């Protein structure tokens, strides 16, 4: 719908001999720009010709004039001022909200797409998750309380954030961790990664209406969330079967190759970055991980298929790591009696590396700064969706694996 344009100042109409007329209704003539009272189209400027009678009252009713104008209606005139997308077809653009509870997107994510037919002309995204567990910048709290709060930050990756808080506090307090504890933590973090990546697969399946995969991935995800080491290792044949099945699924390639491409950028984190050929992984510099034989998964095409492959590879590799780690830690609370100092930690959450800096004073956290992968990824949505077909755009947004809970706006 054309918006009402602002009125031209009155004196303008005396200096310029221009009148405004509707391309479709030549009988509508006005001194000022605006929209046609009959059809709402923008009025076109036109030079006043010698024989045309100047209109005394600049009102709306001109129906008595120019009724026999034989000017032919031209589609080019009608559409030449409409915004155009890459396909060159001018159409009305509409803003359509997707979310916060949309079947194919993470809950609490609001995506407003400007649609040009079935093509996305623009996108705005924001999270509606008002996370009360977000770090209060001023209020100091004791370390245990802080860890619990951060663990509640993101219900999609509670353990990774709990671990992040613990490691930052340990770092501030100068606590050394025993190698067995470090391995137990790796087991727990990798278990969460497997569950989270299976959730990524389930979202992918839901978005593409791939019911079989949705059922399998959801069942495996539920199974893996609370499984112990033996139960996790028992999943391996199932996951191998799933991978084999996906390799020969028809239409899967056409649905994902070359779509949702992102340029390598320092905003990319986690599996999204690794699918773009960036070896960004906090685990690759962690001695405990290196000792277990950690390898980064990597793809170079940076499309949805690459992200799918990275997720699948990481599920398998995480199983290997769990097997090598030997145990899955339950992550008890840290004991940091009265320590003080600055601490920093980076943990590779399932969505990418999250960084936490904090200051500890007498066993109390007095300030903290958190950097999360989804916050970085949110700003990629516009470039990712522009000029994509609606289905591809939504799938591309889904492939970023955003967690609305960890987004800090």
């Amino acid at each position: 719908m054309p918006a009402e344009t602002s009125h031209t100042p009155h004196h303008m109409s005396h200096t310029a001999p221009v009148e405004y007329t509707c391309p479709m209704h030549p009988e509508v003539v006005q001194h000022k720009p605006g929209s046609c009272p009959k059809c709402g189209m923008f009025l076109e400027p036109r030079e006043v010709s010698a024989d045309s009678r100047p209109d005394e009252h600049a009102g709306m009713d001109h129906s008595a004039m120019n009724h026999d104008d034989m000017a032919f209606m031209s589609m080019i005139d009608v559409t030449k001022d409409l915004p155009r997308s890459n396909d060159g077809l001018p159409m009305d653009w509409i803003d359509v909200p997707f979310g916060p509870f949309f079947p194919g997107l993470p809950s609490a994510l609001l995506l407003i797409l400007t649609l040009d037919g079935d093509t996305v002309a623009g996108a705005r995204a924001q999270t509606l998750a008002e996370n009360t567990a977000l770090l209060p910048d001023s209020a100091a709290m004791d370390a245990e309380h802080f860890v619990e709060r951060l663990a509640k930050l993101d219900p999609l990756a509670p353990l990774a954030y709990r671990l992040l808080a613990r490691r930052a506090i340990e770092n501030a307090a100068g606590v050394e961790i025993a190698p067995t504890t470090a391995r137990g933590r790796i087991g727990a973090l990798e278990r969460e990664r497997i569950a989270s990546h299976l959730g990524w697969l389930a979202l992918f399946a839901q978005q593409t209406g791939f019911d079989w995969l949705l059922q399998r991935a959801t069942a495996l995800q539920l199974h893996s969330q609370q499984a112990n080491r033996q139960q996790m290792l028992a999943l391996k044949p199932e996951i191998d079967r799933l991978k084999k099945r996906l390799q020969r699924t028809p239409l899967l390639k056409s649905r994902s190759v070359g779509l949702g491409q992102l340029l390598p950028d320092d905003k990319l984190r986690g599996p999204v970055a690794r699918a773009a050929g960036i070896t960004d992984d906090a685990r690759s510099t962690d001695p405990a991980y290196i000792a277990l034989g950690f390898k980064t998964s990597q793809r170079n095409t940076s499309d949805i298929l690459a992200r799918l492959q990275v997720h699948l590879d990481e599920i398998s590799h995480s199983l290997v790591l769990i097997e090598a780690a030997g145990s899955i830690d339950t992550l008890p609370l840290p004991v940091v009696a009265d320590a003080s100092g600055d601490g920093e930690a980076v943990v590779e959450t399932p969505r990418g590396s999250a960084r936490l800096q904090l200051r500890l004073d007498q066993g109390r956290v007095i300030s903290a700064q958190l950097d999360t992968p989804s916050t970085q990824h949110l700003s990629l949505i516009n470039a990712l969706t522009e000029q994509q077909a609606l289905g591809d755009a939504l799938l591309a947004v889904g492939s970023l694996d955003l967690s609305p809970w960890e987004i800090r706006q």
Partner: protein
Amino acid sequence: MTTQAFFIGFFGLAAVWFGVVVFRTHSMMRSALALLFSQTALGAMFLGMQAEFLGVLQIMMMATEMSIMAIFMVMFMMDPGGLGEMEMTHQKRLSLVAGFVAFTGAAAVAVLFDWGPVVSVAPDAAQQTADLGLELLGRSMLIFETAGITILTAMIAATAVAILPIEAKTTTNEY
């Protein structure tokens, strides 16, 4: 016979009525679908006149054609929903004259032309279909083939004119 005449008359009136609706509504979508139902009523008239193949063909073809017209009308027109009560008519005098001339011409042909003796019983539908096929592949073949090739040429030419030049499109696929 009277039932047949009744149905022909009924669908004839329906066709005219839906034709009028095309211009009475403000909504592009209603306008396009009213034209569709006008054409469907024409198809039903063919059925009433025992021209089964023609009737079914008309009913089938028009649905797709008018739907495609509908999407173009919705795409290109301001206010396709008609909520702004857009005026749909223009060039009234020209269209009045053109409509009158066309109607008089058609009526004159219908009345004045010598249509030959009226066949009392129409051949059955299967026979008609077979006859139509033989006609299409016999005497009328040249006409239909010419028309077909012309339409195909027009379609290809229109597409060629409409698509963007190649160099303008490369920006989207660069990566």
